[in-house]
């Protein structure tokens, strides 16, 4: 009886023509260093096949058919080994879509903004010589790899990194250097690495030749040896003897050197980046430099350093802990005193490097979408929120509670397994299947057209900081692992609204959304809607997708009947009639289930819990258990001026 109903909303129809693929990839290959993580194969198995040692490109694949997906896989590759070439990359960008143009325009605008920001505060510092020289004394390669890593990071601080092998270096050359960082390991019983011996010997007799040099040392060693980090200590001393100024205290790293060396680098590099062209350390610019390096240009835009750097705050950080080996869960709390402008990620790094090296979380760039955590109930990227903004003081000092995202299995502490999302994504076949469209000639080439409003909407509706966070915003996801979740529902709905896709693809998407694990599995959009601007936008998409799915099913099934009869009961009296819903939606089997599971009993005996009279209405004497305890009313009285409600219904939705 429901099949003849008209859909509430027709699907969005194509509004423009499009013939040129957005990303015409002509060639794709895998560079050395693949870690076989499967991420690329999960995104586009038609192109990438992960084998035991490396990923390979599937034989015979035409990369131009999978342009967007290849680029997405390349961007998502954790070790950046997916390489590709785009047609016309060196030519005029005549074939870009409006959405891409907008995105690039925004990116350019942001770059200009950042550049002008830097010009506002750090411009003078950034001018002239900006070289930082990083020397490594390495026996096993650790110090060398760290040096290479720091040299890459130097650009974040407006520096140009130069890595020098100590072997064969002329100590006299160092005298012209304003900024020097040293990474040196210790070999055997306090011995200098082979490649550092000669330079160290030369440095000891060089005299005060580094009067215009600032330096800091990162020493690597093994605390199980008597002379722990001895070589690094010797370099720290000899640099001072040569007249260089120690800009940041040496760090002595044990075998697990990643975290302490990273923490040392972030501060040492910030400080050394504040050494200006004349070789003077501009200490008052340090906070601005830290902000600049972290990608926060807001202070510099304002031209006011004080607006970024905030005083230290006392905060108690309570962090969820889970040990996968023992299966124990709990929480550790640390009382910290940190600058208010520190991000939550910086807090975690500090705790790991100074308090508990076993603290586990996903580290990465500030906007790394995989780093999401829950902080004081908010789903955030920890690199993007400041302590002063998120800490709450309820009378017992500022508190920060950090927990893993609830939608995912916890690997350890705050690190969660994101593969469940990737598998769900794969199951939705999210790739783009274009339809045949007409084109038009413009400037000698075939061009597609699209309404710029549609293009912008399509682009912005999936342009979120982290799809993992969006996935975790649904309170239903943790309890239904098969549900594809709000991020994928949003993605699919967005794709179905794309005027470039084929009709067949659009139909398949709606069927996918109508599936039991599609949008109907979302139990409450309110939990998504509360997640700020992102949540509001996505909850609107999900509502549209749900309406389309219900219409696709002709309002049959429990989901459709629930919506249908709920609405019908409001028209009938202005109020909800639960009895109607129980009878029409659940049906005899559902009612029997409620009877057997104790729901009906708890309704009937509700008076024993509320203290109300057992009988609510006379119907209890005629047709019990209606009218007893918390059993819902069989018949509703109508709201005042009910005819107005009926009249509005009749005008706005004649189906009811």
């Amino acid at each position, binding site marked *: 009886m429901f099949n003849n109903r008209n859909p509430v909303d027709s699907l969005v129809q194509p509004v423009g023509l499009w013939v040129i693929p957005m990303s015409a990839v002509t060639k794709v290959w895998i560079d050395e260093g693949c870690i076989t993580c499967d991420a690329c194969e999960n995104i586009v198995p038609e192109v990438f096949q992960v084998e035991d040692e490396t990923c390979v490109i599937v034989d015979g694949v035409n990369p131009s058919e999978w342009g967007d997906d290849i680029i997405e896989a390349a961007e998502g590759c954790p070790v950046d080994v997916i390489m590709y070439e785009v047609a016309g990359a060196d030519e005029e960008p005549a074939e870009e879509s409006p959405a891409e143009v907008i995105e690039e325009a925004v990116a350019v605008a942001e770059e200009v903004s950042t550049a002008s920001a830097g010009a506002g505060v750090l411009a003078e510092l950034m001018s002239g010589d900006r070289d930082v020289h990083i020397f490594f004394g390495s026996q096993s390669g650790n110090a060398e790899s760290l040096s290479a890593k720091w040299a890459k990071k130097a650009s974040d601080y407006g520096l140009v990194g130069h890595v020098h092998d100590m072997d064969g270096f002329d100590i006299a050359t160092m005298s012209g250097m304003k900024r020097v960082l040293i990474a040196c390991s210790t070999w055997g019983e306090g011995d200098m690495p082979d490649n550092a011996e000669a330079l160290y010997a030369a440095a000891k007799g060089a005299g005060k030749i580094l009067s215009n040099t600032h330096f800091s040392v990162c020493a690597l060693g093994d605390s199980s040896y008597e002379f722990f980090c001895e070589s690094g200590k010797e370099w720290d001393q000899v640099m001072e003897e040569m007249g260089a100024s120690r800009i940041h205290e040496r760090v002595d790293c044990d075998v697990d050197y990643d975290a302490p060396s990273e923490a040392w680098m972030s501060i040492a590099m910030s400080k050394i980046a504040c050494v200006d062209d004349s070789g003077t350390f501009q200490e008052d610019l340090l906070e601005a430099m830290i902000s600049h390096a972290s990608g926060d240009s807001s202070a510099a835009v304002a031209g006011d350093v004080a607006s970024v750097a905030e005083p230290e705050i006392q905060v108690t950080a309570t962090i969820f802990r889970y040990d996968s080996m023992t299966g124990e869960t709990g929480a550790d709390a640390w009382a910290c005193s940190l600058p208010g402008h520190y991000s939550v990620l910086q807090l975690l790094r500090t705790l790991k490097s100074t308090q508990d090296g076993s603290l586990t979380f996903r580290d990465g760039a500030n906007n790394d979408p995989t780093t999401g955590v829950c902080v004081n109930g908010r789903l955030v990227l920890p690199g993007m929120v400041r302590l002063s903004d998120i800490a709450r003081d309820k009378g017992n000092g500022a508190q920060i509670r950090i927990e893993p995202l609830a939608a995912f299995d916890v690997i350890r502490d705050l690190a969660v397994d994101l593969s469940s999302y990737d598998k769900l994504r794969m199951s939705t076949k999210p790739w783009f299947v274009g339809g045949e469209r007409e084109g038009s000639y413009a400037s000698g080439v075939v061009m597609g057209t699209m309404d710029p409003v549609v293009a912008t909407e399509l682009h912005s509706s999936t342009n979120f900081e982290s799809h993992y966070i969006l996935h975790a915003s649904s309170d239903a996801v943790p309890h239904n692992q098969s549900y594809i979740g709000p991020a994928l529902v949003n993605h699919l709905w967005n794709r179905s609204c794309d005027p470039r896709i084929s009709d067949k693809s659009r139909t398949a998407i709606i069927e996918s959304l109508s599936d039991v694990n599609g949008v109907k599995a979302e139990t409450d959009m309110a939990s998504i809607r*509360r997640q700020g601007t992102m949540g509001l936008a996505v909850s609107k998409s999900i509502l549209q997708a749900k309406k389309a799915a219900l219409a696709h099913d002709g309002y049959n099934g429990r989901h459709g009947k*629930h919506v249908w009869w709920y609405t019908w009961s409001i028209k009938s009296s202005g109020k*909800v009639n639960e009895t109607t*819903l129980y009878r029409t939606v659940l049906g005899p089997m559902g009612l029997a289930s409620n009877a057997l599971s104790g729901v009906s009993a708890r309704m009937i005996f*509700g008076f024993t819990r509320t203290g109300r009279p057992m009988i609510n209405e006379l119907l209890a004497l005629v047709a019990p258990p209606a009218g007893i305890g918390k059993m819902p009313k069989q018949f509703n009285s109508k709201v005042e001026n009910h005819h107005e409600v009926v009249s*509005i219904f009749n005008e706005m*939705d004649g189906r009811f």
Partner: protein
Amino acid sequence: MAMKYAYHPGNVAHSNALEVADTMPFAAESLGIELIPLDAATSCGAGILRQANEELQITLNARTLAIAESMGLDIITSCATTAGTLHEDLNNLRNDKQLLSKVNDILQRHCGLTLKCEINVHHLLHVIVDEIGLEKLADAVKNPFGFKIAGYYGPNIQQDGACGGDDIFDPDYLEQVISVLGGEPVQWSSKTQSVGVPGLFSEDKTVMKQTASVLSDAKSEGAQLVVSACNLSHMLLDVYQGKAGKVSGKKTKVPVIHLTEFLAFAFGHYIDRCAQLRTRVLVIGD
């Protein structure tokens, strides 16, 4: 002088949450709130009606809002779902003049009403903390509770602009009220989590797990009693807690009452029901 509000009872206070209908007037009286009944108000739609026709839901809610506005009153409700839904639709109308014009045209022709959007919607909890104040609340207490109590907000009032001066993600208004009423508030992380009311009839297995998750979290933190700020969620947390426990395998049995009952009992109304509740908590337990 009493504060006057137009009272929307929510979706189920007339039916299977009659205890809310019983206790709200007494709670309001002790708080110095005069409730003016909105007898013509329809159901807010509870997130369901909009799945059939979003503009229809907005228009019906605009009618309710316009009726209260014509009385010169803001709306108060004890149901978080109703507060959240009315607030959301009012916000949509405020931000979309075209939509407001279309809705007003319909309201004018069918009801002779025009919504100016000068009205506000409040949940009882926010009126207590933001308007009345905790000192006055303390003055009204006659039967303080001595239990460990978990306050449940749900997600609907924890929206931007809908939760008064409370924090959206880490609220504590209920905890403040519980403390003033003599209880020991439990700190728990599930207090704003959805129990999935809109999916009760269609996704019951997931909803039962969501409900069990909330209840078991409250229990594991030592709660002897749960106080709900939402009529609909209250119904799930109470009536369905046995089924939720069976589906999830978690411990879910704990007395659940509504905020209005909690207030009325503490203010000395329904002393027989209050005594019965104390017996349940202290003697019967789970």
